[in-house]
């Protein structure tokens, strides 16, 4: 590799071998016997607390891992050297730390490897489909959503939920459709998003009947679990993703390939919307918590698009190139793709960098993107003006797709060897660490939990200096 580091070609980058600053994996063992672990639904996320221990050279953080109705906390000791960012130590030492693109598994889980885990929280009778860690909230520690759209709030030290928003899903309700075996997974799609200040939660769920999905605005400050408002989204069967941009503006992405933008304070009508009928089904979207403006969409055909919400909104009122009555011309900032048409099942913006996000393919692959190259190419005009992104995409300042693809795809995590060809990619099975740069955790169907930090080209450049 060393001979490539001077002038790496785009091709080289795309076929870059997956090198890691660090990677550790383990299969957790449990106190209670688990039957058929492979079939249980699993999700993973990080807690945000980190404890650096210089003496032992360890950085301790913890993972929250759910399996069926049980949620486990798994401690994870990362080698401090791989994560220590600044050059306070001597330069030689820093380079030494950078030098090992670690190809063999690390031992972040050595302490817990042989310990049998017992559930920290249990959401009885439900299957956890998503978890969100509530940073420095006094009331509760995490919010978990079950597959049927119910929500539960958990607090450290109390095994059962302290608040619940229960969706009635018995066989006698209209939700019975979900319990039938006709298309249970298709309808049992739900999601939630939290406002930036964590005070408001919006969750989406199928209505059970066709052609109407439901958004519920739920309080998470004064009275957690209080349902403030219910919004019907007509013409849609499921709304699979809900994300906030700030404390008030949020977007909901439904199966009619439309992202509707709402303000929690307005009445039951979207502020504006974005329809994307091309490129297959929209399957995922995520917003950047750092810029409040960028968002990424992913589609079933493997196409990934980066958007600026200001430009999307501006286009709805801009009648320069269209008649009133025609659809607004909403253009993305840039479009990328998964090679081989690997469909996008999840996308997540980094919580520490405004230019990085990962996408998860249906194959279970995790693609790491860094848009810094794209942003630097577009720096020349004044960024202040809100319509600049629109102009940019209609002119030819965007680099050629191949070049962009090569420059922006930073890393590619192919999961483990023992993956079968079955459908693996799922939502909420990959997560960024909220504080530590570039650290990602994943879980696969065989309960293999991994944490890794990619070793990207940027690190080669740093190594050069």
């Amino acid at each position, binding site marked *: 590799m060393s001979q490539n580091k001077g002038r790496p070609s785009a091709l080289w980058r795309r076929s870059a071998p997956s090198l890691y600053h660090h990677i550790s994996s383990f299969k957790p063992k449990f106190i209670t016997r688990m039957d058929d672990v492979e079939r249980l639904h699993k999700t993973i996320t990080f807690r945000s607390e980190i404890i650096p221990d210089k003496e032992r050279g360890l950085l301790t953080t913890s993972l929250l891992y759910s399996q069926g109705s049980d949620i486990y906390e798994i401690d994870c000791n990362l080698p401090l050297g791989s994560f220590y960012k600044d050059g306070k130590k001597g330069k030689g030492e820093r380079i030494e730390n950078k030098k090992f693109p670690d190809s063999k598994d690390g031992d972040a889980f050595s302490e817990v490897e042989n310990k049998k885990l017992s559930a920290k929280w249990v959401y009885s009778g439900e299957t956890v489909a998503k978890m969100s860690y509530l940073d420095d909230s006094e009331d509760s520690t995490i919010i978990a959503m079950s597959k049927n759209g119910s929500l539960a709030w958990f607090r450290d030290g109390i095994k059962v939920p302290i608040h619940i928003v229960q969706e009635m899903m018995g066989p006698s309700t209209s939700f019975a459709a979900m319990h039938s075996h006709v298309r249970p997974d298709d309808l049992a799609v739900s999601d939630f998003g939290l406002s930036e200040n964590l005070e408001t939660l919006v969750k989406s769920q199928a209505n059970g009947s066709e052609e109407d999905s439901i958004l519920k605005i739920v309080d998470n*400050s004064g009275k957690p679990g209080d349902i403030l408002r219910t919004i019907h989204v007509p013409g849609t069967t499921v709304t699979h993703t809900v994300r906030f941009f700030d*404390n*008030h503006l949020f977007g909901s992405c439904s199966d009619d390939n439309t992202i509707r933008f709402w303000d929690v*304070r307005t009445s039951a009508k979207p502020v504006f919307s974005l329809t994307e009928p091309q490129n297959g089904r929209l399957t995922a979207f995520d917003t950047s918590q750092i810029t409040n403006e960028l968002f990424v969409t992913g589609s079933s055909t493997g196409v990934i698009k980066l958007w600026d919400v200001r430009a999307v909104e501006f286009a709805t009122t801009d009648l320069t190139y269209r008649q009133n009555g025609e659809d607004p011309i909403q253009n993305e900032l840039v479009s990328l793709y998964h090679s081989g048409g690997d469909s996008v099942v999840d996308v997540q913006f980094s919580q520490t960098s405004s230019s990085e996000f990962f996408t998860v393919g249906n194959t279970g692959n995790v693609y790491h993107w860094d848009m810094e190259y794209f942003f630097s190419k577009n720096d020349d005009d004044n960024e202040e003006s809100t319509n600049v992104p629109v102009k940019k995409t209609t002119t030819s300042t965007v680099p050629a797709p191949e070049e962009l693809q090569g420059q922006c795809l930073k890393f590619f995590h192919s999961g483990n060897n023992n993956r079968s060809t079955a459908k693996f990619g799922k939502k909420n099975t990959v997560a960024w660490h909220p504080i530590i740069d570039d650290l990602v955790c994943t879980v696969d169907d065989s309960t293999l939990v991994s944490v890794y930090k990619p070793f990207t080209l940027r690190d080669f450049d740093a190594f050069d200096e």
Partner: protein
Amino acid sequence: MTKIYKPSSYEHISSLKPRFISRVDSHQDKSITFSNKIVPDKDDSALKTSIIYSQGSDIYEIDCALPMGGSNEPKPENEYGDAFAAVEKKPLSAKWIYSGETVSKMEYLGNSNETTLVAMSKNGSLAWFKDGIKVPVHIVQEMMGPATSFAAMHSHVRPNDLAVSDFGLSFDSETIVKSQASGSAEESILKVIDNAGKPSEILRTIRVPGTTVAHTVRFFDNHLFASCSDDNVLRFWDVRTADKPLFILSDPQNGRLTSFDASTVTNNLFVTGFSTGVVKLWDVRGVENATTDFTNRQNGEEPVQKEIANFYHSGGDSVEDVQFSYTSPYEVVTVGGSGNVYHWDMEYALSNYDEEDTSNLPQDASEDLQTQSLKFVHTGGPRREAKQRGKKNIVSWHPVVDGYIATVDDDSLVSVYKPFTVETEVDEE
């Protein structure tokens, strides 16, 4: 009137009769608030702050220096202080102008925000001002010409009754709710307005049927707010819910409900004032719990909502305005129709209050409660006439410096004062 008031003396009081560069009609409506600027000045042991003062459509910033007292024991001061010494001789020129409107209320947003000040005009329009720009940077204009249905306000039949508007700001300053009369009778309007991403964008309009004016709007946190209407009902809303109040508090006794204010320190306490001079202290949690508590009533009957304690202005001086202190969870000022400013300390009433046990509520106005709670009365000097003076938004707490109050009189006399209150240890002996 024997022993109700403690001796009124001030720890500090300064007054200024502002002079203006341009000739102004001093009979215009005035309102006052503090800015949150404070610059400590160690040499003369004073805090430099400023007062925002509006007169008609003009808004002035008046610098003032509040003595800090240092390590000295606070003592009553009979002389007028010189907080305005620096500006006394200087004619003022308007910092901001809201042309064609009469400013009735101002809210200082501070320097961390995109805009510095929100001002409301008598007809319910809102203007956002920024340091260094004399005209508004954003506006929410209410159409009020003679051709609109609001023309009623311009008629001389009952102009002041209908031209009642107010606004409240959420704690994070990201949302504004304003109230106004709809022009036609039997309906007032609340508008939820963005103050974060797109200031001045109207997010939602809520109609409050059965009311002519909603004279007060206040937030309890970032989302919960209450509007107080002329049907003597406080309606509690969440900016995120649909167009229906979460719960209500109806208080038909004790005359007209004229004002209320929520504590920004506790999130739970609020005070209501009545035209008969009655002042009531409430806990919003108790008010809400009562709406779902059926212990002492049948379903269908009105909920039993009791205040924590009640007080009164002596002589039936009507309550025109109430304001909670920004720095203390206990201190409240009420403004009487006479123009008197009453200072209350709710600590005594709250010490007998247990949120779990509401059986002994309310603590009715007793001589003891009244004496323990009414700390001070500011009568505003000899210039006052007997006619009705008290108004909203002419008295304001300093947002940071404990205990300081700014007031403006009808004759444009601006005062800042800090009351000297006799501590309760005198009574204990």
